């Protein structure tokens, strides 16, 4: 028996903290265009390299390069840019409304807009997303979702489609392929797999898309989703948004140190990609690849989207307590809106003027929607759904004991 040194506990730390810059070299990057694009019927085990590389299309000059550069049509790209800008404008206004106490809470997706929006545009009607609270882009990318109604949810007012029951941002839009958001992390990831299994059981052609954050991958339902998706070859895209942070904890606390979240997929027998989440073209191409695999019954794909949570976790958070204040400015993958704009201008599909006009127009659009929504009430003015509705929808039909309780409340 050899003598050993005393053991000690390793507790991972980010390289940067307030007052000390982050050294982003911990992020393994690949040059734009450098990563291969296998056929969609590749074997999961053969995606092993892709789980450690980084699929990128847009290079530093805004050119689309390499095997994942698929040249989606210009209208789609313009639509995507507009939706990203709309989302950012929307977030900014809602943050102000929250500070004005018109709503109790808000969560923005600043810096992560490309992921949800390019992904939404790569899906088909009827597909179902199981999002987290940071995929408002899935809704705002669509023309069939009324922004006024969305804001009414945030304001918990008379027209809140969720009857005031949910925290702001916990939307539910079945008709827009957007599953009801849960406050409990990760639960939707395995539900997405179940939805995909159901589609396969019924011989349907619709697919599911599940979402989770880097931090929440430590929850059981992440593992469960990978296991069930693999076992039954479910038609599902398993999206992991690695924005480097989970409230105050760095992605290494979730298990990102010296490995990737995509690598977990490969281990479970799932085709996996690691993709630049701030590169609209890469997101669109990878989402299409995964959707095609699912729809051709080739099974699930796990995609780790590498991005950065540019803002606070939520309106209850103050990131200056745990990370450098200007961290995002140094993040090597940049700003998704700036990058797509640069590309579109480079290919002559956009201009600085059009950008400024669009920005103005979107600001007006969001302001108008907010104004209309506020007519139906805000949390501050107490103009909300009646207390009697509190007792509905617990069950399909209200049991006697809830009737009695409603009566007792006198509503």
């Amino acid at each position, binding site marked *: 028996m050899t003598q050993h040194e005393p053991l000690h506990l390793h507790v991972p730390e980010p390289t940067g903290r307030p007052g000390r810059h982050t050294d982003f070299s911990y992020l393994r990057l690949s040059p734009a265009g450098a990563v291969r694009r296998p056929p969609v019927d590749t074997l999961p085990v053969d995606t092993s390299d892709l789980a450690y590389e980084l699929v990128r299309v847009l290079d530093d000059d805004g050119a689309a390069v390499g095997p994942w550069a698929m040249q989606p049509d210009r209208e789609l790209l313009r639509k995507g840019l507009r939706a990203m800008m709309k989302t950012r404008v929307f977030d900014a206004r809602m943050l102000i409304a929250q500070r004005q106490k018109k709503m109790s809470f808000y969560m923005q997706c600043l810096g992560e807009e490309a992921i949800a929006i390019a992904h939404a545009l790569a899906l088909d009607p009827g597909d*179902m997303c*199981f999002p987290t609270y940071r995929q408002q882009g899935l809704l705002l990318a669509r023309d069939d979702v009324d922004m006024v109604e969305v804001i009414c949810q945030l304001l918990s007012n008379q027209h809140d*489609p*969720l*009857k005031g*029951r*949910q925290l702001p941002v*916990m939307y*539910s*839009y*079945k008709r827009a392929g957007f*599953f*009801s958001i*849960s*406050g*409990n992390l990760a*639960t939707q990831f*395995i*539900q*997405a*797999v*179940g*939805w*995909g*299994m*159901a*589609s*396969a*059981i*019924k011989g349907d052609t619709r697919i*599911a898309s599940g979402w989770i954050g880097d931090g929440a991958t430590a929850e*059981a*339902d992440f593992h*469960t*989703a990978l*296991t*069930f998706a693999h*076992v039954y070859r479910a038609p599902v895209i398993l999206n992991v948004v690695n924005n480097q942070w989970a409230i105050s904890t760095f992605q290494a606390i979730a298990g990102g140190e010296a490995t990737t979240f995509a690598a977990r997929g490969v281990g479970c027998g799932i085709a996996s990609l690691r993709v630049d989440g701030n590169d609209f073209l890469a997101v669109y191409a990878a989402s299409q690849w995964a959707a095609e695999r699912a729809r051709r019954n080739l099974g699930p794909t796990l995609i780790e989207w590498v991005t950065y949570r540019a803002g606070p976790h939520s309106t209850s958070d103050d990131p200056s307590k745990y990370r450098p204040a200007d961290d995002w400015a140094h993040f090597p993958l940049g700003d998704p809106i700036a990058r797509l704009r640069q590309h579109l201008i480079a290919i002559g599909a956009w201009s600085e003027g059009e950008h400024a006009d669009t920005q103005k127009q979107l600001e007006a659009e969001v302001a108008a929607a907010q104004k209309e929504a506020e007519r139906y009430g805000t949390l501050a003015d107490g103009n909300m759904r009646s207390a009697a509705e509190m007792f509905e*929808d*617990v*069950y*399909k039909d209200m*049991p*006697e*004991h809830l009737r009695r309780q409603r009566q007792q409340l006198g509503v």
Partner: protein
Amino acid sequence: MKVDTETSADGTAAGTRSTPMTMIQALRSAMDVMLERDPDVVVYGQDVGYFGGVFRCTEGLQAKYGKSRVFDAPISEGGIVGTAVGMGAYGLRAVVEIQFADYFYPASDQIVSEAARLRYRSAGDFTAPITIRMPCGGGIYGGQTHSQSPEALFTHVCGLRTVMPSNPYDAKGLLIAAIECDDPVIFLEPKRLYNGPFDGHHDKPVVPWSKHPLGLVPEGHYTVPLESAAVFRPGSELTVLTYGTMVFVSEAAARETGIDAEIIDLRSIWPLDLAMLVDSVKKTGRCVVVHEATRTSGFGAELTALVQEHCFYHLEAPVERVAGWDTPYPHAQEWDYFPGPARVAAAFKRAMEK
């Protein structure tokens, strides 16, 4: 006879033949009927596919309906319930098995935070019409992890329905009602009753269901409505509120004490048939609550509270509770733990004395 009066309002069971069935056969028949009638019904869980379940409740169903309707699942209760919720969002009705009720805990987040809350939080946009079957209860030397009765935990979770049949007839009718119900239903199966009514006298030979009238089960579709209790044994001196195995144990206690107890089998534990309970207690003025689960914060606490709230001025004596001790279910001392006829009889006597 009870069987006839229980036939559901839509009368679909009328005209179908009845056959003697064990509770296992009755449960299998319920799933068979529903797989046949509704293409959106699927059945899965650990060992339920090819093998037909460790208690054989799904035997033959995979062969009959194919592997995409009846299949084996990984050993992940959370995954089983989580996928069922997702399937519910799609439009299927999943009937899943948790191999033993003792193993539902890894699924508790999906049950409590998801299945139970989905309709409410989405204001009806999405629902989880799922049925979660779990064998429960002791009496088979299963030790502390094959004997639990966790029903009380589910009754504290709004949005869930909790059901426990005590006989083959109810088992089939309630399981069909559960599968057809648009709410998530926790369906607890007292495994000590799978093969015959068990009155708690473990040292006596077991009588099979084929010898009991409630073992006669219609072959076709019928339901026993949820939220309806049954008077298992009418009586005038004392009301017993119970369910599952303890229905028979209570009957034995009534027989052995000669006390004319009215035994009410809740069948639906929550939401429940309060009117029947209250009427009975008002009539008898005495009440004993009996369950196998541990006593503290067991469902007997809620029943006791409800009775004293609704029948306070009719009660001649405190409501007595007979329950499992507040310890894990021990293996060797199983019959000291199990609240058998002697303990129930003693409570009857205490309730009558006062």
